């Protein structure tokens, strides 16, 4: 009985100490595509030159595309950043209740504020390993009635999160789970962000980065941005 109790205490301390050790984290994600209109890939295919950085601590995070020196595939792959909704700088702060995205729309900067928790997650028992982390699968379904097709469509967002990294953030503004999201797929498996490199900053480490709130651009809500961007995108008409 005593031995069993000791094991539980030791296990608890191990988990607690590993949680408390992580002060900040930097994750590099690769962007990949899982299917196109005509093809479903057996394995997701990683896009060359499309890497993103997520820097996070327990209260805030910033996600942005990493600049690359290799521009060979830039022209061919850059549009995936826009179609996947990953353009600009994503910022979230749990203390100030802010979820922002700074974007450059047709040469003009805008700073869009989003609802703090915009996805309703269902956490499943499915799990796998990413790097050294046990991750669990969660998904969220968004429904939209299409007048064009006269039927309702369901679009699924899937996330694999690591409870061992207790930061409630993820790539491309995908967040709100009890652990950092190390893999996410959007548009029912068309677009993926997959963790490639994970750097942990423990307590006592010299902090490798600051998480800075973006400030540039005309401030607007997400709904206002829909009207604003539509106006700009139709300016060529």
């Amino acid at each position, binding site marked *: 009985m005593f031995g069993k109790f000791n094991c539980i205490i030791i296990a608890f301390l191990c988990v607690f100490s590993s949680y408390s050790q992580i002060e900040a984290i930097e994750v590099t994600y*690769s962007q990949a595509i899982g299917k196109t*209109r005509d093809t479903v890939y057996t394995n997701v*295919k990683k896009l060359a030159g499309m890497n993103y950085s997520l820097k996070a601590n327990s209260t805030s995070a910033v996600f942005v595309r990493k600049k690359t020196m290799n521009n060979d*595939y830039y022209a061919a792959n850059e549009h995936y950043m826009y179609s996947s909704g990953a353009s600009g700088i994503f910022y979230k702060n749990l203390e100030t209740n802010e979820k922002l995205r700074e974007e450059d*729309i047709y040469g003009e900067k805008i700073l869009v504020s989003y609802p703090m928790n915009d996805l309703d997650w269902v956490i499943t028992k499915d799990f796998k390993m990413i790097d050294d982390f046990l991750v669990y699968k969660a998904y969220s379904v968004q429904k*939209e*009635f*299409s007048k064009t097709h006269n039927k309702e469509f369901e*679009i699924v967002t899937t996330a694999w999160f690591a409870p061992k990294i207790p930061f409630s953030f993820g790539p491309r503004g995908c967040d709100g789970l009890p652990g950092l999201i190390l893999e996410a797929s959007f548009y029912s498996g068309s677009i993926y962000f997959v963790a490639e490199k994970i750097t942990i900053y423990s307590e006592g480490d010299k902090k490798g980065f600051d998480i800075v709130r973006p400030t540039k651009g005309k401030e607007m809500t997400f709904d206002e941005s829909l009207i604003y961007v539509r106006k700009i*995108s139709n300016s060529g008409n």
Partner: protein
Amino acid sequence: MKKMFSLLLVVFFLSANTLNAFNIDSQDCAAYATQAANAEVAELSITQEFASHINGEYDRIKSYWLGYCEGSNNAGAEALQPGFI
């Protein structure tokens, strides 16, 4: 006075031509951007309604292709194949 009038006339015609050319290019690019955005949305297997209302990406994609077209004067450029690792 006559020289000045001629000069003004030349400037007027040049401006008119530039403006006209810009409009034509803009029209081409607008059509190109719409076509590219529609193709992109289809590629993602999502509806335009979803891309427009829920994520707001449709118009962002369109604005990207508009800038791409006008920046490179590249309306009708053939689609580039994605580069994989």
